């Protein structure tokens, strides 16, 4: 099989600026939105959660916006036509610097700037709006037409900015959407990118029961739009499509999403279209959101070896069966006794998947090779503390990685202490790998002494303001993963636990089931502490059943 190389001009399309930081921001969007909704006692959590990755990617990756200068003529525009996603939108704007986070608690209340549906910000509406809102939504079906007006004006003014319009799928019941669809292709608006939040639920139920909109791709294609389909919760799929504008026609991204994604009992449940959860449940819901984890299979594992062909095969299987990232163990035969592959192979692999590349450099003098690994298309580059020549070198490397849009990581071996200087650089660290084997080979046994080390380190890091990820790497399998999750790891490198058997699908799904049911148990136990156990069980019944957790 021939490996796919990406062209130089395509490179930008695979590029996500600090992938792990963006994940963090999106988690924060959900938490902040939920905080507002529970405080208000009403609002639309489902719509906010299905669109969180879309809005997060737009505001923190794609759009040229400056909240402090919201009238900049060259800015990209975001027209939120599905305006009932207001809580998520406000949360995004707040994190982008529009207003203080605490203000989310005024959502939907009297005298608040955060109205039930967003209001265009202007001198005239400044008491009912916040900087950055371009469009007053609330009545469905209008935003795409307004976006067309903006695109026509931008073209007239010879501006090359983009107008992004977020549409709800239920919203496309409105006839005006199709008037606009026709007009956008008439005017050949290649400066318009619409995103359809295809969560398949509208207020009264499932879209295909209330008013079927499928075959949705064909509909837009026949209106002469460029149509692409992505998983709307995968930023690595969204970002390239948001960036790429085809010539001479408007583009729509069908983002397949899950309404209420992030909170299991709300997910894909029409009941939660416009209902607020109880304020008492908020701590548990935040705990659930903070429980989001990433599975990062290490492709050096398994019996098929590390020939490029085998690596490609493993990547394809991992992606197919729901892995979140690809862990790349780079070994040089010097820092560790074994040798695997280097940047040239990574570069060859880059084109076959959009999954983020989580490169773990177990090499001497990583500093000298950093450019090549950056060029190879890694999303995360982790270097070892043992070969890092002190604070200055880390500072230099992380600065280089950050300026190239790569999430910087630091790894420590089981016997290595976390260097004290890292506490002055926590903002420049996106992931910390606390190794639970001595690196060098796949298939080693988990060293249990690492758990107390994690238990001690992680809270200390959090107290000092570290918001990044902790990655568990070494001997992670069904028997060890829960305890690592328990102490705060949220990225799990798994080698033979996934590739050690033929049933890769089963291995990944079992792992997720294990982690999810562990979290479910924890939430149930914590509901007791909050004195809301009965109420929690009532709302959570189907989920408790799914994980076979006995609540009585």
């Amino acid at each position, binding site marked *: 099989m021939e490996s796919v190389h990406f062209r130089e001009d395509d490179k930008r399309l695979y590029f996500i600026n600090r992938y792990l930081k963006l994940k963090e921001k999106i988690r924060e969007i959900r938490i902040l939105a939920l905080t507002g909704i529970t405080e208000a006692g009403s609002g639309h959590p489902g719509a906010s959660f299905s669109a969180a990755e879309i809005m997060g990617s737009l505001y923190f990756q794609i759009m040229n916006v400056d909240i402090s200068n919201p009238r900049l003529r060259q800015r990209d*525009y975001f027209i939120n036509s599905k305006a009932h996603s207001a809580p998520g939108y406000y949360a995004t704007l707040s994190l982008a610097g529009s207003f203080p986070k605490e203000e989310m608690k005024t959502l939907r209340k009297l005298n608040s700037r955060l109205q039930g549906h967003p209001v*265009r910000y202007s001198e005239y509406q400044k008491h009912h709006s916040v900087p950055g809102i371009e469009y*007053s939504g609330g009545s469905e079906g209008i935003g795409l*037409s*307004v976006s067309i*007006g903006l695109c026509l*004006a931008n073209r007239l003014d010879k501006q090359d900015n983009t107008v992004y319009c977020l549409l709800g799928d239920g919203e496309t019941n409105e006839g005006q959407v199709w008037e606009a669809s*026709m007009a956008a292709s008439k005017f050949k608006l290649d400066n318009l990118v619409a995103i359809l939040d295809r969560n398949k639920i509208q207020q009264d139920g499932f879209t295909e029961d209330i008013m079927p909109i499928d075959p949705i791709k064909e509909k837009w294609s026949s209106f002469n739009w460029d149509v692409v389909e992505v998983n709307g919760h995968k930023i690595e799929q969204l970002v390239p499509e948001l960036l790429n504008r085809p010539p001479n026609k408007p583009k729509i991204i069908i983002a397949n999403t899950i309404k209420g994604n992030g909170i299991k009992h709300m997910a894909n449940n029409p009941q939660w279209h416009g209902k607020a959860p109880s304020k008492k449940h908020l701590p548990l819901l935040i705990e659930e959101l903070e429980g989001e984890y990433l599975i990062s299979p290490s492709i050096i594992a398994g019996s098929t070896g590390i020939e490029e062909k085998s690596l490609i095969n493993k990547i394809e299987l991992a992606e197919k069966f729901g892995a979140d990232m690809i862990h790349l163990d780079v070994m040089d035969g010097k820092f560790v006794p074994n040798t695997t592959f280097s940047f040239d192979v990574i570069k060859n692999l880059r084109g076959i998947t959009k999954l983020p590349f989580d490169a773990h450099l177990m090499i001497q003098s990583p500093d000298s090779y950093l450019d090549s690994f950056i060029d190879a298309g890694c999303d995360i580059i982790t270097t070892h503390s043992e070969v890092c020549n002190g604070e200055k070198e880390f500072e230099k490397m992380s600065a280089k990685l950050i300026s190239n849009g790569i999430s910087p990581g630091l790894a420590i071996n089981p016997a290595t202490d976390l260097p004290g200087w890292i506490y002055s650089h926590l903002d420049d660290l996106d992931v910390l790998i606390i190794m639970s084997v001595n690196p060098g080979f796949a298939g080693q046994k988990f060293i249990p002494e690492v758990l107390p080390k994690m238990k001690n380190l992680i809270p200390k890091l959090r107290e000092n303001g570290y918001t990044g990820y902790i990655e568990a790497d070494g001997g992670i399998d069904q028997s060890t993963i829960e305890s690592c999750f328990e102490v705060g790891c949220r990225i799990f490198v798994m080698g033979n636990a996934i590739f050690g058997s033929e049933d890769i699908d089963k291995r990944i799904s079992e792992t997720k089931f294990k982690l999810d049911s562990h979290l479910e148990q924890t939430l149930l136990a914590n509901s007791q502490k909050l004195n809301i156990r009965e109420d929690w069980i009532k709302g959570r019944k189907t989920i408790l059943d799914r994980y076979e957790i006995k609540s009585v």
Partner: protein
Amino acid sequence: MKNDLYSLNTTNEIRFSDMRSAYGESLVNLGKKYPNIVCVGGDTTDSLKTKKFGEMFPDRLFNVGIAEANLVSIAAGLAIAEKISFASTYAAFIPGRCLDQIRNAICYPNLDVKIVVSHAGLSVGPDGASHQQIEDISIMRSLPNMRVLVPADAPSVKKLLENIVQIPGPFYVRLARPSTEELYPEETDFEIGKGKVVTDGADLSIFACGTMVSASQKASDTLKKEHGISCRVIDMYSIKPIDTDLIYKCAKETGSLISVEEHNVVGGLGSAISEVTSDICPTFVRKIGIKDKYGESARDEEIDSLLDKYGLSPKEIVRNAVELNKREKK
């Protein structure tokens, strides 16, 4: 009173011209002066005369076909990008079909969209009731931030347009289809929020708008000659904001008031005047308009008879004025 009095066209020759051509011409002139003026039309650019603007500025006129909701919303988008955005088609379709869009996408955010419609009222003629827009003043007047203008002739159309492009925010400008008598010389100024006394009088005040201004003048001549009633006729081209001071003054000076409009008597000019009088100077307001029903077709040469049938002719105005005057005397 004399200062308020407007000096009308004094030449004996009566000139007729149509408001749409005045609109089309003005738009071209204004387009030269203001490069940020754009216009959105809906398959009626020929009829609305906005085509002329498109011929002069091909990249600034957008024809979106028969899709009025889309039309006004695109105009809103253009206004967000700092354009002065004109949205134009027949009155029958804009306010009714896309009230929601005008409300949410234009008035609520207070955007600089100028909605200019034609073919308002009964005088559309042959197209019949489906095309006779008689509810629009009422609808548009009820929207916060919206301002409603009903010019009486071509020169006032030009002047009003010159004014409104200098005032940010939404306007609704209502034009009629037929050619109308030119009442004003070109240099006349029209302030938004004011009314113009076109004929002075002491016994009654007739407030009219659009095509009904000249009809009211004719009625006033007859009333003077045949009934000895001295009527004051006021062109209320600005229905919102409305000239409260002038209404108050007329109520104090002439007593009873009459309103005349090519519009339903519910919610139009008469209602707007009554809202003022009931607040500050309780007075009889006799509302002459379409009596809460739909119109019908009439050939162009039958339009005067159509208006008469629906109570909007000079004859009907005279009848009402005489009746009201008698009642006053009692």
